[in-house]
């Protein structure tokens, strides 16, 4: 080996380490939004290495699962409460766990949902319970129906032996009148029979853009946001489009509905209120940051969060300001109304969960793991 060549070896090694290091950083970045749910007494937060059970009155940690972080085990999907004292959680390696929600003890699982061999198997959307059955969307392109009692398989959509959907399912399903409606990143909304898992619509309804969150049910209509810069109202019967509303950016979160209006935001940072009758605009409010989360609506107020850390309460009828707070970190999770509290999960801040007084906007407690 020429001696001159050796002089450049350390430089090349440093360069390669720098490149590999930076690239590796991209690969290992935080993957999902925190998943948040509540049973009225306890908040359950799925984020990174654990599920945290947090007392709603005090913000104190009741338990965490697992007690110690485990390699390759992480959680982002909002847990499902029930049946009985169960808490059903999906992890980021496509497995289901059933916990005793009083103490975090494992009741059954983890149960693997499937394997497509492509390292893309995650549970991103929260499981949904109907009686003793749980319906779980997976990034492997399938919707799984399982027994909530023991995790045993009931059916999958598409059925086993058939190819999975071309893209992932990140959205929780919406279930009504014997049908399971689920949106996919493959741009389609699918309707599946609750009992058999067979498709009710021969093919999904093409929305021209990815669907990342659950459809909102209003009477016999489903309101679905998509990355095609629109909110679409579909009839639950046959999937016909009732109306569509164009937006300035991707609609990531679900709309929230109250008093005949649907409230939702887009990634361009605009909060909208539209009539559910015909999709007519009632008001729009440009904000400083993108909106990925679904707003919450209660008692005449709409609560919205932006990616850049703003939390705001507005009058639902006309968008007049009620109160506002700025948090450290990104706000990507749907704010959750729990009694008089508004729960807000943070990504990348020092605090993981905050409880605000819904009327005044004052902080009641914060939770840091």
């Amino acid at each position: 080996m020429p001696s001159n060549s050796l002089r450049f070896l350390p430089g090349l090694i440093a360069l390669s380490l720098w490149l590999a290091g930076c690239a590796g950083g991209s690969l290992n970045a935080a993957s999902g939004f925190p998943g948040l749910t509540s049973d009225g007494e306890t908040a359950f937060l799925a984020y990174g290495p654990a599920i945290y059970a947090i007392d709603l009155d005090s913000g104190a940690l009741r338990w965490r699962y697992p007690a110690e972080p485990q390699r390759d085990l992480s959680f982002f999907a909002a847990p499902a409460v029930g049946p009985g004292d169960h808490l059903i959680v999906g992890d980021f390696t496509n497995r289901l766990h059933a916990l005793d929600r009083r103490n975090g003890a494992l009741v059954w699982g983890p149960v693997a949902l499937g394997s497509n061999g492509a390292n893309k198997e995650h549970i991103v959307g929260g499981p949904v319970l109907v009686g003793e059955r749980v319906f779980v969307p997976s990034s492997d392109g399938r919707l799984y129906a399982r027994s909530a009692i023991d995790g045993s398989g009931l059916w999958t959509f598409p059925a086993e032996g058939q190819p999975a959907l071309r893209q992932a399912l990140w959205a929780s399903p919406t279930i009504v009148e014997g049908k399971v409606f689920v949106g996919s990143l493959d741009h389609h909304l699918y309707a599946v029979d609750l009992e058999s898992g067979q498709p009710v619509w021969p093919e999904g309804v093409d929305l021209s853009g990815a669907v990342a969150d659950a459809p909102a049910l209003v009477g016999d209509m489903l309101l679905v946001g998509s990355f095609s810069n629109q909110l679409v109202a579909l009839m639950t019967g046959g999937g016909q489009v009732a109306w569509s509303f164009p937006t300035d950016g991707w609609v990531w979160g679900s709309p929230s509905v109250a008093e005949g209006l649907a409230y939702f935001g887009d990634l361009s940072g605009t909060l909208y209120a539209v009539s559910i009758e015909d999709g007519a605009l009632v008001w729009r409010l440009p904000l400083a940051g993108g909106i990925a989360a679904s707003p919450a609506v209660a008692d005449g107020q709409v609560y919205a969060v932006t990616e850049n850390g703003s939390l705001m309460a507005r009058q639902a009828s006309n968008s007049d300001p009620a109160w506002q707070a700025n948090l450290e970190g990104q706000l990507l999770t749907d704010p959750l109304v729990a009694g008089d509290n508004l729960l807000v999960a943070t990504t990348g801040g020092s605090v993981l969960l905050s409880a605000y007084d819904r009327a005044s906007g004052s902080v009641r407690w914060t939770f840091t793991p």
Partner: protein
Amino acid sequence: MWNTVILDPMINSLLFIYDLLGRQLGLAGAFGLAIIAFTILIRLITLPLTVRSQQSMQKMQAMQQDERFLKLQKKYKDNKQKLQEEQLKLYKEMGINPLSGCLPQLIQLPVIFGLYGAIIRALSDSPVPLLEFSKHIYSSISTSVIPLDSHFLWMDLGQPERWRLDFLSGLPFLADGIPVLAIVVVITTYLQTKLTTPTAPTTQGGGMTQAMNIYMPLLLGYFAYSLASGLALYFFISNLLAIVQAAAMKRVDWRGLLSRATTLVKRPG
């Protein structure tokens, strides 16, 4: 700055080509084809630089036979610092850039880094990376291309490539499959550097060129082995194009492939 100048144009070029090939022309494996088309584009953009550096390398090769160069070698054989100073003067006089030999390879590095960032972001498979990716997309790009289909031939372009063979699954070091593309990248990078780089003189610039010729196949092979296979596809196509380009310019040194390796082994010091 990095995003504006390198990353965002790369991401949006890839998306534009992907949209054209996949949605409008209906071709399967559109992201792989987009990477190939993008590689051709990069080669065309850097063509003037490649031509100039190859001309410069030819001059350096000729200079080794120049009487003044040989006299300097003899005169300052015991004073390396002075020898370098005098050689640099001579380069200047003859209009030669001694670093030009490795310049086309060095120029690849920001492209590699940018392209890797673009591929990883474009093939985001979880919410936070996809949300970040959305901020890089120009408003002129159709949102209907999101999310991208990462499959091309047997590869998932967002993952390191392995060719899985059932009968090899019992072997511990090949259980994940054979890294075909990484092997091909090492071979084609070696061939490309050997076939297209003239014999380097015994100078600092020449030493660096030689170093790049030796380490670059290993470095790119390591990246191809461990990073997203979309990047390995870029390396492979880029190497093929470099060889074709040099052949078209009649600058491929087929004989040097073996003889120069022998020279390197025999050379003292």
